[in-house]
């Protein structure tokens, strides 16, 4: 019999069974969380007792967890198991403040790989496919997260890593890649290189599917990617705090992303009042892990703005769909697949006396590539009239920002007094990108 779902029982069952499973897993999760120093203290103070949850609505009685909480309790404050049980960590970039680190035991890695395989299967990827993962391997979750899912699904995996477009194209041609995963802004660049080589991905590759994620993009940009490559492009959503990729994925109907509710309890709240908003209305996505043992996180404020798409999907999956991410409830932005907070840039500049602390970040598409242009003022007091020193300074700032946020910026030195002084909540970031897609 032809398989419709990766896991018939967990995807196709009814809402009631799903919610029963959620209640059961939430109690288990609270029990696990109770073993971490952070939640132990918090639950005690708030009188929260694991095992007392009777319905999913009771999630609202539990406290929120923020990125700051994770950082403040770095590195082991959220760890629920002895270190001996842990087999992997993934961590955010950053050298100034504490990074965000997530620990996994064998169960967690296994569960994540399964969710990733389920996600890809739901987008029509099968074990007969050749899957090229154009994503950074290492601490970033897009590499290994996809890798384990691709292998679990049974595709031939090509762990290509990020960048080097000529090699990406050669790999596609040599091994007959049928599916690739990349950030949307990179695909515009990759297409340009195809053109420069007088190649047409529609004719000269076997690609039929692209998985795009880690960066917000519009429906128009998706359609453009589909047209350029002659493929179906599926939106992937994830965040490192919730493992990474494999949190929510589009099915072949391409009408919203099914969020895997057996593994994550989701809420959409008004970011100001923190009250739930009705289905269909935009708000901040709040998530609770339901199947993670090493590091459960309760009511995590993702800061991503989305909505629940009301109604059922034609694919028959019971897991609700979220809409594409339309923004953030904080000032984070994503460039070259890296999450960047303006505060990180500020932190770097504060330590460089040769420049003023006033700065402006322009996100622009230059030659088809999305770039982060950081404008910084040369400090009058430190100016010596030496061109070499200034050139070196620009290079040093570039390197320091890159070390901090992982994405390489273009540093532009400007005259003092030309960047407007911030008043109140300063607009430090101007987004003029078109995601590398003209």
């Amino acid at each position, binding site marked *: 019999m032809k398989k419709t779902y990766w896991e018939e029982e967990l995807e196709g069952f009814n809402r009631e069974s799903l919610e029963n499973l959620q209640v059961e897993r939430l109690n288990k999760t609270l029990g696990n969380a109770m073993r971490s120093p952070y939640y132990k203290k918090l639950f005690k103070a708030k009188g929260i007792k694991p095992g007392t949850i009777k319905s999913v609505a009771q999630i609202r009685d539990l406290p929120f967890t923020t990125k700051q909480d994770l950082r403040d309790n770095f590195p082991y404050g959220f760890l629920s198991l002895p270190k001996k049980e842990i087999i992997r960590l993934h961590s955010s970039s950053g050298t100034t403040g504490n990074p965000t680190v997530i620990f996994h035991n064998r169960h967690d890695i296994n569960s994540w790989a399964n969710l990733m395989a389920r996600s890809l299967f739901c987008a029509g990827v099968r074990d007969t496919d050749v899957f090229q993962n154009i994503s950074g391997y290492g601490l970033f979750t897009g590499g290994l997260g996809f890798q384990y899912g691709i292998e679990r699904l049974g595709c031939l995996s090509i762990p290509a890593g990020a960048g080097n477009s000529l090699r990406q194209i050669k790999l596609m041609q040599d091994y007959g890649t049928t599916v690739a995963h990349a950030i949307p802004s990179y695909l515009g660049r990759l297409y340009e290189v195809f053109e420069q080589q007088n190649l047409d991905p529609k004719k000269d590759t076997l690609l039929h599917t692209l998985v795009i994620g880690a960066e917000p993009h519009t429906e128009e940009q998706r359609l453009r990617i589909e047209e350029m490559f002659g493929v179906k492009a599926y939106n992937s959503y994830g965040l490192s705090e919730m493992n990474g990729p494999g949190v929510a994925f589009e099915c072949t109907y391409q009408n919203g992303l099914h969020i895997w509710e057996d593994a994550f309890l989701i809420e959409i709240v008004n970011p100001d009042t923190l009250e739930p908003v009705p289905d269909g209305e935009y708000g901040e996505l709040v998530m609770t892990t339901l199947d993670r043992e090493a590091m459960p996180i309760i009511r995590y404020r993702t800061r991503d703005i989305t909505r629940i798409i009301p109604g059922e999907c034609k694919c028959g999956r019971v897991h609700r769909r979220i809409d594409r991410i339309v923004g953030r409830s904080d000032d984070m932005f994503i460039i070259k697949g890296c999450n960047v907070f303006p505060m990180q840039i500020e932190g770097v500049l504060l330590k460089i006396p040769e420049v003023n602390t006033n700065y402006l970040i322009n996100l622009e598409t230059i030659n088809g590539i999305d770039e982060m242009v950081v404008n910084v003022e040369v400090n009058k007091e430190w*100016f*010596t*009239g*030496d*061109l070499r020193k200034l*050139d070196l300074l620009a290079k040093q700032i570039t390197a320091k920002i890159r070390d901090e946020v992982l994405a390489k910026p273009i540093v532009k*030195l400007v*005259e*003092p007094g030309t960047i407007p002084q911030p008043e109140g909540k300063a607009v430090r970031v101007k987004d003029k990108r078109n995601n590398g897609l003209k």
Partner: protein
Amino acid sequence: MAYEISIFLENKIGHFERITRILKEGEINIRSMSINDTANGWGILNLLVNNPKKAYKVLEEAGVSVALKEVIALEMKDQAGGLNELLLKVAQAKVNFNNANGRIIEATKSAILILDVPNIDESKKKLIDNGIQFIDDNTIYGN
């Protein structure tokens, strides 16, 4: 001692003009100039003016990134081979420089070569040791 003023300048319409306006209002006369451009949208403007300290002050007060920089001023003949003759001596003294500009003092007779050197004290010593003379301030600034 010879001084140049160096100004950090973005490569944008009107920015150089603004500098000259500030100098005009300060009644500063520009004797010679050079611009070092980078590929990154900015450059350094070097000016030899009649009163470097005053020029520095008026630009500083106008909020410009400006530096007062000691340079080396040498005399050469204003005729074919004049610069070559001088640079041969500079090369023999083993002095390297980052930027240079020149101007005529008296046509067909003499001219000034301004050298912006990486290490001013060491370079001056090498030139003196090789018998190369510096020009006096009045000639440099044309006062």
